[in-house]
C-alpha cells in the first residue's frame, strides 16, 4: 500500500505545487517552488553522471563479448575518456581550461565540429535523391503537396524572385496562413494531450515513476 501511495503523494504534492506557482506566484510559496526547481537542476546533473557510467557499461560489455562492431565501442570509450579528461582539467594547468588554443577546444573545433557539420550537410544530397525518386504526383493530395513544396522552396531563395516573380510573397502567404492554421490545430491538440497526461500523473492515474 505504502509503496504505491507514497510516490503518488510525492508526485501530487510537487506537481500541484508547480501548477499553483505558475498561476499564483506568491511570496513564501513561490520561494519554495523555486527551491524545488533548484533541486531539479541538481537531480538532472546527477543523471549526467549516470548516463556516462551507462555508456561505459554498455560499450564495455560489447567489447568484452566481442559483439558486432565492438571496435567502434573502443573508439567511443577512448574519445569519451579523452574529451572528459581535458574538459575537467583545471584552468591553471598548461593543458587545461576552455581558452582558445587549449587541447579541449582544439579537439572541439577540429574534430567534433567538422564531423557533426558533415553529418548534417549530407542531408542535402539525400533530400535531392529522395525528392527525385519519391515526390511523385500519384494522387490529387500528392500533387498539391508537390506544388506547394516547389513554391515554398523557390520562394525561399533570391533566385526565386527572378525566375518566378511573386514566389516570395506566395511563400509568405503559404507559411503564415495555410501552414499556420494546421500548425495551430496540432499545437492546441498536443497542449490538451499534455495537460491530460500531466493531470493523470499528478493524480496517480498514470504512474511512470513507480512499478505496480
Amino acid at each position: 500500500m505504502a509503496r504505491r501511495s507514497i510516490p503518488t503523494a510525492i508526485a501530487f504534492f510537487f506537481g500541484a505545487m508547480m501548477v499553483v506557482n505558475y498561476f499564483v506566484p506568491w511570496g513564501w510559496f513561490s520561494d519554495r517552488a523555486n527551491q524545488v526547481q533548484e533541486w531539479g537542476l541538481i537531480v538532472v546533473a546527477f543523471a549526467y553522471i549516470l548516463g556516462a557510467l551507462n555508456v561505459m557499461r554498455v560499450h564495455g560489455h560489447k567489447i568484452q563479448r566481442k559483439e558486432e562492431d565492438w571496435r567502434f565501442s573502443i573508439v567511443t570509450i577512448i574519445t569519451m575518456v579523452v574529451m572528459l579528461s581535458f574538459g575537467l582539467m583545471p584552468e591553471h594547468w598548461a593543458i587545461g581550461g576552455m581558452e582558445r588554443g587549449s587541447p579541449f577546444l582544439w579537439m572541439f573545433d577540429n574534430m567534433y565540429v567538422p564531423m557533426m557539420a558533415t553529418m548534417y550537410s549530407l542531408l542535402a544530397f539525400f533530400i535531392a535523391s529522395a525528392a527525385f525518386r519519391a515526390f511523385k504526383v500519384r494522387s490529387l493530395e500528392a500533387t498539391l503537396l508537390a506544388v506547394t513544396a516547389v513554391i515554398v522552396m523557390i520562394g525561399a531563395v533570391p533566385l526565386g524572385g527572378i525566375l518566378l516573380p511573386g514566389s516570395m510573397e506566395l511563400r509568405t502567404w503559404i507559411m503564415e496562413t495555410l501552414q499556420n492554421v494546421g500548425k495551430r490545430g496540432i499545437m492546441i491538440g498536443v497542449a490538451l494531450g499534455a495537460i491530460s497526461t500531466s493531470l493523470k500523473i499528478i493524480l496517480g492515474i498514470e504512474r511512470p515513476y513507480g512499478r505496480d
Partner: protein
Amino acid sequence: MPNGLDKPETTLEKIERMDRRIVFLAIAITIILPLIWPLGLPIGVSPQVDDFHEAIESIPDGSVVLFPNDYDPASKAELYPMTVAILHHFFKEDRNLKVIGLGLFPAGPPLLQKAFEEVAVDQYGAEYGKDFVNLGYKEGREIVMASMGESIPQTFPTDFFGTSIDSLPIMQGIKNYSDIAILVNVSAGYPGTKEWVQQVVSVFDVLMVSGTTGVSAPEYYPYYNSGQLAGMLEGLKGAAEYETLIEEQGIATSGMDAQSLGHLVIILFIIAGNVLFILNKRNKNRDRGGRF
C-alpha cells in the same frame, strides 16, 4: 525485368532509375561553383526579419540583452552566420549594449565563444566580462529557463571558463528577467524558442525575437503571428536578409547563391522525376492496351 513486364527496360525507365550518385554529383557541383564564383543575387528582406531588426533597435542604449544560442555544430552552417550577424548589430553602433550569452545545447557555448571573439573582440574591441559574457551550458532545459526567472546568478554561478560571475562587472545588478531588455534566441530545436516562449515570454513578459533553422521555422510562425515573438530569422535566408539590413555582408550572403542553385536543382529533379513517372506510366498503359 525491372519494369515488371516481360520486356526489356526502356530508356525512360532506365533514366527514372538513374544511379543516385549522379544526383549527388549534380548537387555537389551546383553548391560548390557559386561558392567559388558568387553570382551576387539580390536579397530581399522579409517582414519578420524587418521586425527582428526593429525589436533590437527599439531597446534603449546600454540595455542588457540575453542571448541564448541553443544549437550545436550540426546546425552551424545555418545558425552560426546568424549569431555573427546579430553580434554585428549589437556592437556596431556603439550603443553600449551588454550581452549575456549562454547555451542549452551542450556543444553550443564554445561556438558562441568563438563568435564573440571573432566579432565582439576582434572587430569592435569589446571586453569580456564588461561588454559581454558567456555563461556556458547548464543542463535542465525548461527548469533552467524558469529558474533564471528567480535568479540568474544562482542558476549560473560561474561562466563558461569557470569564473564566478559575481566578479564580472557586466553581471553587477543583474538579478532576473526584470533586468533584461530583450531575449534574442538562436535555436535549432528542443530546448529552444518554443520553450523560451512558454517558460519566459508568457510568464515574465519579456520582449523576445528568435532565429531558427529553416526546417524548424514553421513551428514558430504561430508565436510570431500572435506577437509572442517580435521578429524571426528563418534559416540561412534569414541570416542573409539580416546581413543586408545591417549592411554587413558575410558568410550568409555568400551562401545564399549556393542555396539558390541547390533549391533550383532539387526542383528540377522533382519536375524531371514526375515527367518520367507520367511518361513511363503512359507507356505501360499503352503496352497493356489501356488508356492513359
